[in-house]
């Protein structure tokens, strides 16, 4: 094992983990406002396909990312209208969004399977992913708007009584989450693996959800969680190459097992769960009550 080999692996880990960071930080903002959106995987897929198709048609990378983010805004906006105004069950609506997104992305992308494109260098986005995490961290703990968003997630009734517009705050948080998920998807189809394939996000959306829990809803820990989970997957492939015979599936299930352990750890103590999870998560807000 020489230095080049290690640097090579580190590069791959950075490139492979970036979409997890985007999706997880987006979902974290949504959950901090008190809304659980299980549609991450669906929004990532639609984001990936819309970026790819736009790039093939227009040839413009800028337009591709723009349209992709717009698709995320549309998908999450639809989710927001359902859960905020029609007060639908967040868990079922989120699952419906993922199921719908899987179908929609396959349908849109049908003609484009196997179309070659020139991939874009990922490094700009790798840097952006770190920047976004630090901006969100600053926003949460150093700005008034961040405090309001957290207050809405902790107790919507108290935030409402103080005169803050709960629905508006949550709407913006959901839209931000959706655009980040779409960005993660477009990064996958344009930078990470420049192509389109049905279901190509390969369940990264669910890992992103796991990362949010693993990081106990703290932005800077999203980086730690994402790089542990992303690193494990890449290391597993390289361990196989080095002839170390531990079945890869056990590495792949590690993020999910680790998340369950973290969940049990934080929820076994009332104070700890209070300090970690947003208290109003999944509880709908109804003004008339």
């Amino acid at each position, binding site marked *: 094992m020489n230095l080049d080999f290690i640097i090579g692996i580190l590069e791959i880990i950075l490139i492979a983990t970036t979409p997890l960071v985007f999706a997880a930080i987006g979902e974290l903002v949504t959950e901090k406002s008190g809304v*659980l959106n*299980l549609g991450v995987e*669906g929004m990532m897929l639609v984001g990936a396909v819309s970026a790819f198709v736009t790039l093939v048609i227009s040839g413009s990378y800028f337009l591709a990312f723009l349209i992709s983010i717009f698709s995320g805004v549309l998908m999450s906006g*639809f989710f927001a209208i*359902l859960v905020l105004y*029609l*007060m*639908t*069950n967040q*868990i*079922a*609506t989120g*699952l*419906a*969004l*993922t*199921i*719908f*997104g*899987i*179908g*929609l*992305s*396959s*349908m849109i992308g*049908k003609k484009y399977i196997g179309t070659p494109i020139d991939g874009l260098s990922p490094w700009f986005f790798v840097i952006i992913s770190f920047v976004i995490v630090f901006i969100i961290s600053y926003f949460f703990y150093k700005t008034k708007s961040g405090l309001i968003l957290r207050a809405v997630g902790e107790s919507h009734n108290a935030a409402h009584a103080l005169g803050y517009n709960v629905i508006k705050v949550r709407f913006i948080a959901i839209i931000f989450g959706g655009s980040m998920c779409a960005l993660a998807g477009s990064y996958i189809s344009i930078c990470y693996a420049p192509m389109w394939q*049905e*279901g190509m996000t390969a*369940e990264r959306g*669910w890992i992103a*959800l*796991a990362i949010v*829990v693993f990081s106990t809803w703290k932005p800077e820990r999203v980086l730690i969680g994402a790089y542990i989970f992303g690193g494990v997957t890449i290391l597993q492939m390289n361990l196989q190459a080095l002839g170390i015979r531990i*079945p890869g*599936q*056990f590495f*792949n*299930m590690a993020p*999910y*097992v680790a*998340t*369950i352990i973290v*969940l*049990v750890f934080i*929820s*076994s103590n009332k104070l700890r*769960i209070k300090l970690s*999870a947003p208290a109003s998560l*999944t509880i709908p807000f*109804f003004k*008339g009550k």
Partner: protein
Amino acid sequence: MNLLSPSIVPRTQISSYVNFLVPLIAIILTLLTGSLIFSLLGFNPIHSLYTFFISPISSLYGFSELLVKATPLALIAIGLSYCFKNNIYNIGAEGQLIMGAIFGGGVAIYFYNVEGFWLLPLMLLAGVIGGSLWALIPALLKTKFNTNEILTSLMLVYVATFILDYLVVGPWKDPSGFSYPKSRPFNESARMPELFDGLRVHFGLIITLFLVFISWFIFSKTIFGFQLKVSGLSIKAARFAGFNQNKLIISAFIICGGFAGLAGLGEVSGPIGLLYRDISPNYGFTAIIVAFLGRLHPVGIIFSSLIIALTYLGAEDAQVFLQIPSAVGFIFQGLVLFYLLGAELLVNYKIQFGKIS
């Protein structure tokens, strides 16, 4: 002020007609949106909808295929209603299905060269145990540590997926299966008997109908069903009445997991006949839609399982005849759930014009 602006007011009494109306509205809106999507993509909407929803079941074989797909959906959905009635969000039925298939299928693989009438019952038992054990994990974590069951049951789906993947690539791989990751084919006595010659509809359908009937009895005629319902409606009322909440949570999870495990075993010992990676096209998740569409009522679930099974069948036909990817079925499934949840507003709230009284 604002005398004529509409406002949303909770209903004090839930009218019974909305229970039928809401799924109906959802289905009609889904069909309308579906035809809009088809015409946007340049297909004749009437012809497409016919290909999707009518032609797949216009033959006896097609109808049997509908029942093959509706069987696991109805079985899982009726299991889920034990949880959902009690406001427990077990969304990990897919993992419980896979575990049932692993346990039951494991029995078939262990006795691959032994035939006997006892083999299938043993597999059924193992399937139920596998699913229940997997569901017991989020149940115990919830009751002992107050851990959120939504996230744990979801995470366990992917753990189960990788366990199955490990088994069919590794220890349970068919020695004569070349490099394809699948197990040995099950022997004849490890297979669900087919109900009619030449049709794939199998004995699992009878088991499902029986369990749906039993569940109807439990929901409407027993104290356990009553307790589930009460603690789902109001946890405070349930506590006041002295119901043991932890016992209810654990029983609901075990029943749901057992049913899902049975559904998984039914798939691998029925139409599939061996273990491999993709034993379930998301049945465990889709069954959540079935449960909601059927409004957690046994009769409703039978109808909704047939409707959702049709989206799977129609998608397969659409792929062959319209060259549309079969994942399009998921568009319809997603849409129906969206509309259903949206229309649910009419059940719990009413729209009132004028002042809130």
